[in-house]
């Protein structure tokens, strides 16, 4: 079966790859582009660790048919750091001990970025809602919620 040419923007850079029909965006990012920051968790839309931004909107890359992002802009955790510096969200996650094993962290950070990009001063309930599609099994949600609130408000670490 012939490969399908696909072009899109990946963290601000144009990329061009060939995908098999039915390939999901997560596989395209990890195996064809080499961006290992989005993780494979459940493959069902239940865990959120594969979350990326598609034209600024939070999507699950494992449930996104790669071809559907042709010409669109994809942001992953790999593009979040600002030069040699961590993004304020990443810094807040470190300061607030919001990443233990770290497997959910890429999705949590993208969900948090999607929230703060449109709502820079969210309430605690809005933060909880924003990460409600992301499962964490070891850190616990409190440090993650505190980290997002800290990044939003520049508050003291919890």
């Amino acid at each position, binding site marked *: 079966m012939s490969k399908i040419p696909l072009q899109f923007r990946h963290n601000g850079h144009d990329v061009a790859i060939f995908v098999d029909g039915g390939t999901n965006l997560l596989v395209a990012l990890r195996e064809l582009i080499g961006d290992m920051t989005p993780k494979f968790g459940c493959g069902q839309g239940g865990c959120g660790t594969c979350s990326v931004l598609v034209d600024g909107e939070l999507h699950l890359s494992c449930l996104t048919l790669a071809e559907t992002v042709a010409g669109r802009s994809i942001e992953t955790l790999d593009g979040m750091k600002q030069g040699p510096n961590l993004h304020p969200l990443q810094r807040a996650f470190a300061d607030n001990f919001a990443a233990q094993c770290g497997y959910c962290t890429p999705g949590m950070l993208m*969900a948090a970025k999607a*929230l703060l990009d449109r709502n820079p001063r969210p309430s605690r309930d809005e933060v909880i*809602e924003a990460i409600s599609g992301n499962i964490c099994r070891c850190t616990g949600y409190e440090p993650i919620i505190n980290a997002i609130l800290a990044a939003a408000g520049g508050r003291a670490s919890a």
Partner: protein
Amino acid sequence: MAVTVKTFASATEAAGALSSDRTARYLGGGTLVMRALNEGDVSISTVVRAQDQALTRIDASGPRITLGAGVTFARVLAERDLGFLHGPARSIGGPAVRNMGTVGGNLFAPNPYGDFTVALLALDATVAVAGGFGARDIPIEAFLQARDRQAGTLVLSVSCTRPASTEAFRYRKIARIKPKGGSVITLAAYLPISGGRIAGARIALGSMAPTQIRARAAERALEGRSLDAATIAAAASAATEGTTPSDNALGSAWYRREIVGVHLRRLLSGQE
């Protein structure tokens, strides 16, 4: 396994491709079809898409609203005129799922999903579909009863009449994971009140049968009566009639039968 992806400009062309190929599935938001592909569903060898703007249109200005099948739950939530559907839309997934999942796809979502469809069933929505035979409208209840045979049809839109008041339409989803999770049971009630009495009540239940169903016995218990404690108790005790729930990881069939009356009573009483 690689599949063939066919993308069409119009919904009509996509419907033609879908009806002529038994192995084809229509890709909406991806939350069902991509999941199936990720799980290695070999029954799908063709994925059909349509980039038809008609499929993402919302008409919410008048008394009868129409949602294109490709309208996402995030867009429902962003539409002020669709306030009566915000509860059902908000009860689905996290933000990413709501950015992707569509109204049309929800009609095909198996238990423990398909919550938006429970709301649409209580609202007695009409489903507009296109197939090899052309386009037609199907009452949502008939659509759901024949859902296993709808694989070759493309849903174009759903439409329903706006409830007269916020009290006239109620929705409740019971989930184990807060704030989000699959449905243990889902309930929706349409309760038009005329002269102090209920006239034309519709109760819809999710996760109480293989597809979303109407609770006809509970509806009969409400009909022509005022919404008082005795009426509500009668409806609640009739809630299990005609239901055939299943066991799954979220709850047993027994548990679902035990709680459906309790939650129907709370829904009708206006309790949180």
